[in-house]
């Protein structure tokens, strides 16, 4: 009896140690290293700025973004219209500001879908192995064998156009990446002593996966998700550009580019700023993502 108590105690100790020490200190360490990286901090600053614009944009817009003014179409950039006006005389500056909200919303929501579904699938595959593993990972392999933008537009063909559908399509196509990361990490972690200990003391599988294993994968997932947001913003813009994504009246950067494409020589200014906004957003998430990766993996550091 005495002996058994001891065993339980030590298992609990290990469990406590794993929960207390590992993930939090790791994240804190990651954060500190990140702040030393100038490029990553720049990315972070731009992202904070973009979030600010997305939230308070409506107070910053000089004009109503969807208000057409057919008497003032294709106005060149001026003090009145900083970025000029488009084919319907709408103020491009206001529309670019308005578009920030949509791009961030689609980017974040799509990644949230991919991250949650991918994590669950990857965890199931890695933890249980066997047939479940084979079936899940085969489906992931199949999805990866179709170029993601092609798969996304095929999904859009089925789902129809619109913002929610773009989120689902972009989220679905990036599931495999997360599933792979989580599965790989679980395979390498699940034989560790503390996981075995947690099993021995009778924890439920779900508790072991979510409390003992996944926190260790957290940092790689954060990196992947940050870079994933940049991909999702690019894909959103691409769908919009092809006329398959977010539909009017929303001002979406890719859609703005797609609709102004016919005026490439007569009014190039209509095409410069929305694209610049996409590039800066994607760049910011890439800077932060690269910085985070360097922070958790000293080997890739310069």
């Amino acid at each position: 009896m005495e002996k058994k108590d001891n065993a339980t105690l030590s298992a609990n100790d290990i469990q406590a140690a794993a929960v207390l020490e590992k993930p939090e200190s790791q994240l804190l360490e990651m954060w500190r290293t990140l702040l030393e990286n100038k490029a990553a901090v720049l990315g972070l600053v731009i992202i904070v700025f973009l979030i600010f614009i997305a939230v308070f944009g409506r107070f910053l817009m000089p004009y109503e973004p969807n208000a057409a003014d057919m008497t003032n179409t294709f106005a060149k950039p001026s003090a009145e219209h900083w970025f000029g006006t488009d084919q319907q005389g709408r103020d491009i500056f206001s529309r670019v500001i308005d578009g920030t909200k949509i791009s961030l919303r689609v980017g974040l929501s799509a990644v949230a879908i991919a991250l949650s579904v991918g994590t669950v699938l990857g965890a199931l595959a890695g933890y249980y192995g066997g047939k479940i593993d084979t079936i899940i990972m085969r489906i992931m392999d199949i999805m990866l064998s179709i170029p993601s933008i092609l798969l996304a537009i095929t999904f859009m063909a089925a789902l129809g156009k619109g913002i929610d559908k773009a989120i689902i399509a972009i989220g679905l196509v990036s599931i495999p990446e997360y599933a792979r990361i989580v599965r790989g990490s679980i395979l390498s972690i699940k034989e560790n002593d503390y996981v075995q200990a947690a099993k021995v003391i009778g924890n439920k599988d779900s508790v072991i996966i979510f409390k003992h294993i996944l926190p260790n994968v957290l940092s790689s997932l954060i990196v992947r998700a940050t870079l994933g947001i940049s991909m999702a913003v690019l894909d959103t813009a691409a769908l919009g550009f092809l006329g398959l994504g977010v539909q009017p009246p929303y001002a979406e950067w890719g859609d703005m580019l797609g609709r102004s494409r016919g005026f490439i020589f007569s009014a190039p200014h209509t095409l410069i700023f929305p694209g610049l906004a996409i590039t800066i957003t994607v760049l910011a998430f890439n800077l932060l993502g690269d910085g985070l990766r360097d922070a958790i993996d000293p080997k890739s550091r310069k």
Partner: protein
Amino acid sequence: MLRYVLKRLLQVIPVLIGVSIIVFTILRVFSPDPAPVVLGQHATAEAVTEWRNANGLNDPLPIQYFNFIKGIFTGDLGTSYYTKKPVLDEITSRFPATIELAVLATIFASIFGILIGVVTAVKKNSIWDNLGMFFALIGVSIPIFWLGIMLIIVFSGTLGWLPSGQRIDPLLRPNKITGLYLIDTLLKGDLRAFKDAALHLVLPVCALGMYSMAIIARMTRSSMLETLNQDYIRTARAKGVIKNRVIIHHALRNALIPIVTVIGLQLGALLGGSVLTETVFSWPGIGSYTVNCILKSDFPVVQGVVMLIAIIFVLMNLLVDIIYAFLDPRIKYSKKEG
């Protein structure tokens, strides 16, 4: 080696069956009925039924799927809802344009990607390193289609140096031999047409290849940095081997394995990216065509194109694995042992 190749080839089959199921499910099960789009909103119910019967859409789904698979093997992928031409013809007539663009973009991306990667690794932490890596960062962040638009504005609009779209001046179009204009014009000995086709390729190739170039540059840099730290590099240098020789013969050759993998995998990204590039440059390939077909619900064509691209992509991955096994004998051996 042969056993390894055969084994990998067999693994391709279930993946392709899976792709066919996914594509079929998306387009035939979950997609809205194409009939109203194709026939127009005012089509009568009888016309819709008749059209659906004619196109096999009223057959039970398993039969539709069976016909689809049978078609892949017999080369009969159905007919386009609009042109009524066989899908295979629609694809093959446009495919060379896409291949010409994608292959040249791969070459462009590989040459400049490796060049930038090597220079930034050798001149680590110098201004060249920072410039090169900043360029690569822009490369992975800029949307392909916007880059294409900006290139057109600058080089076609403002400077007037290069054409903004299409493959060639219609008057110079060569007779179809391979469908690749650079080769066809050369075979005919028509240098003027060759030059014109080449000029038409410059901007789309740059736009499409930029992303892959940036990825290859980053990969090359990190792979080179790893090999440059190896003992045998130091030995070679200590022996007095000329620096450039060390870089090319000793370091790059060994750093090449992961780079080759990345280049192979980029082909998928390039085929996907061609959808966007072709739309920007009015390039008459399968990418822009597919987008139009999706917008018009011309599903037999979309099915065919996605299957074709998946097959190419999967076979490319296979090829990469095989090249990898050739370059790195350890893989072969471990397979033998296992």
